[in-house]
């Protein structure tokens, strides 16, 4: 199942710089996208989300951009901090009434390392 893909397994960034994490999807029935952060031995923690009717959502240091025509979204973290080091998952939710309604489909994750 490759409906949601994160092509970069890892990203290394200097503290204070911008981190950009990318995600591509293939299913046009997805109507909502979420980013989760995961530390080892913990469950995914919800970070930020965006509806398919928007192209940008911002929450503090985190901004998610959605390009529907390219079926691409990205998470920008600025400025990056060492505490942001974790695995970041992109997830997508199906449109109500569609076969994937409610469930989340996850990407493989990107390991972000922020160096002091």
């Amino acid at each position, binding site marked *: 199942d490759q409906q949601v893909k994160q092509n970069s397994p890892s990203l290394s960034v200097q503290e204070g710089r911008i981190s950009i994490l990318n995600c591509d999807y293939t299913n046009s029935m997805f109507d909502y996208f*979420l980013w989760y952060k995961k530390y080892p*031995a913990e*469950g995914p*923690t*919800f970070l930020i*989300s965006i509806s398919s009717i928007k192209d940008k959502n911002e929450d503090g240091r985190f901004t998610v951009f959605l390009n529907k025509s390219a079926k691409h979204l990205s998470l920008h973290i600025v400025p990056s901090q060492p505490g942001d080091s974790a695995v970041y998952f992109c997830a997508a939710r199906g449109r109500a009434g569609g076969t994937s309604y409610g469930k*989340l489909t996850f990407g493989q*994750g990107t390991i972000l390392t922020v160096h002091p």
Partner: protein
Amino acid sequence: EPEVTQTPSHQVTQMGQEVILRCVPISNHLYFYWYRQILGQKVEFLVSFYNNEISEKSEIFDDQFSVERPDGSNFTLKIRSTKLEDSAMYFCASRRGFSSYEQYFGPGTRLTVT
């Protein structure tokens, strides 16, 4: 802040044994989910549960799996006869209501089948 809790944190069992993984979702949430992550792989959807019944399940969720909400707080996943390939992290998640899309995850149960 309310959170999803799961017990046990780690369960070791022998192949063919039954296991029950337990979750306490956030108290005012209405939708409940189980996901799993096999080591090195993606987080995969198993089942969703609403209004005391399964609303959706994946191909993974075969007759060996069942879910139950035995009371107003617990949500359980039962695997009747475990296989080696059931070894994974199992995550419970909950969602507040129809118009809220964010799912909140518990810390997971690591299931090891030997």
